[in-house]
């Protein structure tokens, strides 16, 4: 049991990072970004391709992260330019189209075959009660907590952070106060793109995966982000880890193993229904 739970920590940390990227983008740009994991996968595949072509590991990783940031900024730019006044629903549907295009472009650039993602972190970090905890797990968890804390502090303590919160709380009022919401939005897209590359790289580390299934990691990411209702960074991290652990336990149970990846779906359903229990009508009036 413990062994399986621990095995779920690494993906859980990855879900948490993806969830953080989702929450940030939602908070600052009013968009549920369905293309988050696809953007991350894009950077990851570039990293894998570069590393495979002999580029030093860390340089390749940096390239991948920058690529993710660039792709994310580009996708965000489409929203900024054409969907500035659209509602959350429309903006999010645009990201679904972006998810499809990212998958299509990745097919062109990287081929349709699964690709091994190299890793320097598959060694063992330490063992608890005979259960090995890998380095990737430790790095992912530490990173998720650090990012949540860092972004949380940024939001709470800096002028930049306050302005981001202002833009998210009342975009129109913020604009009327002369706050350049588009510029801030662009930065958030870039940063969340970079995060998602790290997340997807670490989740898929030392395994061979195809692009679409990495792109669909957005589902557990969404489930984790929903733990904090797209508001709380801390709960997004908790949600990611809980989801990973649940999935790990399910994967270790023989009757459930084949269905373990449905866990995010049920988590999604329960949280959404709970969160929206008071939403009788679609609009305020």
């Amino acid at each position, binding site marked *: 049991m413990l062994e399986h739970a621990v095995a779920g920590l690494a993906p859980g940390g990855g879900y948490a990072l993806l969830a953080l990227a989702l929450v940030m983008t939602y908070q600052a740009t009013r968009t549920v970004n369905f293309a988050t994991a696809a953007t991350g996968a894009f950077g990851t595949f570039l990293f894998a391709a570069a590393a495979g072509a002999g580029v030093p590991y860390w340089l390749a990783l940096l390239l991948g992260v920058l690529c993710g940031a660039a792709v994310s900024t580009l996708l965000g730019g489409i929203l900024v330019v054409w969907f500035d006044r659209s509602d959350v629903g429309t903006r999010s549907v645009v990201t679904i189209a972006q998810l499809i295009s990212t998958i299509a472009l990745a097919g062109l650039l990287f081929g349709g075959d699964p690709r091994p993602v190299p890793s320097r972190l598959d060694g063992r970090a330490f063992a608890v009660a005979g259960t090995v905890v890998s380095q990737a797990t430790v790095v992912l968890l530490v990173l998720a907590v650090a990012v949540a804390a860092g972004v949380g502090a940024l939001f709470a303590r800096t002028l930049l952070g306050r302005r981001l919160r202002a833009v998210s709380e009342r975009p129109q009022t913020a604009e009327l106060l002369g706050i350049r919401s588009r510029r801030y939005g662009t930065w958030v897209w870039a940063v969340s793109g970079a995060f998602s590359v790290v997340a997807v790289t670490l989740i898929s580390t030392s395994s061979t995966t195809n692009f679409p299934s990495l792109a669909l990691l957005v589902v557990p990411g969404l489930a984790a982000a929903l733990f904090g209702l797209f508001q709380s960074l801390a709960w997004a991290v908790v949600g990611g880890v809980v989801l990973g652990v649940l999935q790990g336990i399910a994967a270790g149970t023989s009757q459930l193993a084949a269905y373990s990846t449905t866990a995010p779906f049920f988590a999604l359903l329960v949280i*959404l229904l709970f969160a929206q229990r008071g*939403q009788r009508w679609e609009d305020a009036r």
Partner: protein
Amino acid sequence: MTRPPVSSVVGSLVLVAALVYPLVSGAYDLFLGTSAVVSAVVLLSLGVLSGDAGMPSLCQISFAAVSACVFTQFAAADHPLPLVVQVLASTAVAAVLGAVVSLPALRLRSVNLAVVTLGVAGAVGTVLNAPRFGQVFADRPGILAGDEAFYVFTVVCFAALAALLGFVRRRPTGVAWKSVKNSERATAALGVSVVRAKVTAFATSAAVAGFAGVLTVLQLGIVAPTNFLTTSSLVVFAAALFIGSWRWQGALLAGVVATLVPELVSRAGLPQDLGNLVFAVGAIQALAGGVAVADRVWPQGGRRGRGAVDATAWDCVVAQRSVAAPTGAPALEVRGVTVRYGGITAVDGVDLHVDPAEVVGLVGANGAGKSSIIDALSGFAPATGDVVVAGRPLTGPPQRRARHGLRRTFQQDRVVTTVTVGQYLRLAAGRRLPADELEALVAFSSAPSAGHLVGDLEGAARRLLEVAAAFAARPAVVLLDEPVAGLSAAEALVFARSLRAAPAVFGCGVLLVEHDVDFVRAVCPRAVALDFGRVVAGGTPEEVFADPTVRAAYMGDAVGEDNPDRPKETSL
């Protein structure tokens, strides 16, 4: 009747050509043609959900997959059931799944619903990939064994489904879907069940998608999870946005394009998925520009009359159908109704009554509590106090109140624009509408005809139609919430003239919330003024507007300050 635009003639010819071509061409083109029509069936299914009912679904392919899976299990049985039973049963399973998925949709909308349906797609994919779902070969029965025969069969199936959906869309069931997309509140206010509309939309859509899954099995003979990828659901969704699939032309065009593009891309030696880029970019373009391809090629064709408002029709109706006001219990009696939002009392112990076939004006400045009263009486806001309609106490949710004789309209007009005047009125009536009644309602709305598309009506006619819809159910009382807001002074005058005669024709009382003084004077023999949630004056409009308290409420005279009962401060 206007002639259809050139684009739709050309478009229809292209579709016919696309359907005929595979029959005169080679076996591979026949295969592609079959795939295109099967895709078109999936797009039809999405047309119901996203197009009609406005609910995004990212799991249409999952519905197809589930049906396909059930169908192959049937086919593998030792004593197979008749084919028709197999098909119907497989489709029914998808419909049931659709109904189950619709349950979260009762509370979830837009992005949240998209998230859940994507989750469904992922979960169904996982289940299908699980080892116990083996791959079974399903034989086509003799009559459909030939590829030509099967192609013709799919085309016939598509046509039959399109016709069936077209029929349903003209019926109240289908109009209710569009009404839900337009506004759930307004749907409930018409006495129509939002729950039922959502569940039927999901079940219908899933059944159609499931049927496409069965067709896929019959076409390919053997199916694997790779035939039903989660990403395909996304592509179908994008294709529907791009081309528009809420009518059969759009669905067919989208099906053809969705088959043709990947084919051309792979013939060009590129990865097939690259074709999806077309749909993604097209979808973004459609979202930004607001118009899907099919809606440009085939602009929606209601009957477009000259649009000249014919007031004489209404005058005739008034002359023929007016009856003396019935006597008896008041149409509406309100006692001590109080509405509180948080710590704020928006309506404070209001008493009101409206006699049968009487029009009463409810006036007051912004924030006086007029709209809150309407929300409370119609069941949209929680309130205390007694509401009695035609002698019967009225309680429960909006839909129930609407069915028990109290109808309302909304400040922003919420009529469904994509249906005809007649279809909308029939939905609102909730019963068979006799021809003469329909005629009277159409005359009141000043629409050129019952076959006229609501979206083609002018603003004033649209607002009148909304009121006509409220009358259509023959309620005891109708609450109108600022019906002339946003209309010009001249239009408001025409509106007033029509509305004044309406109670005698339709036999129902009207409570009219309005702050346009001229309009209230023109329509209401009696008015009641509210300020800070309380009744402060009553009488003829002249008396009410001459009342110093009312004048102070409208213009902010100092009078109100001495009133200790006024709430100190309100905060949101």
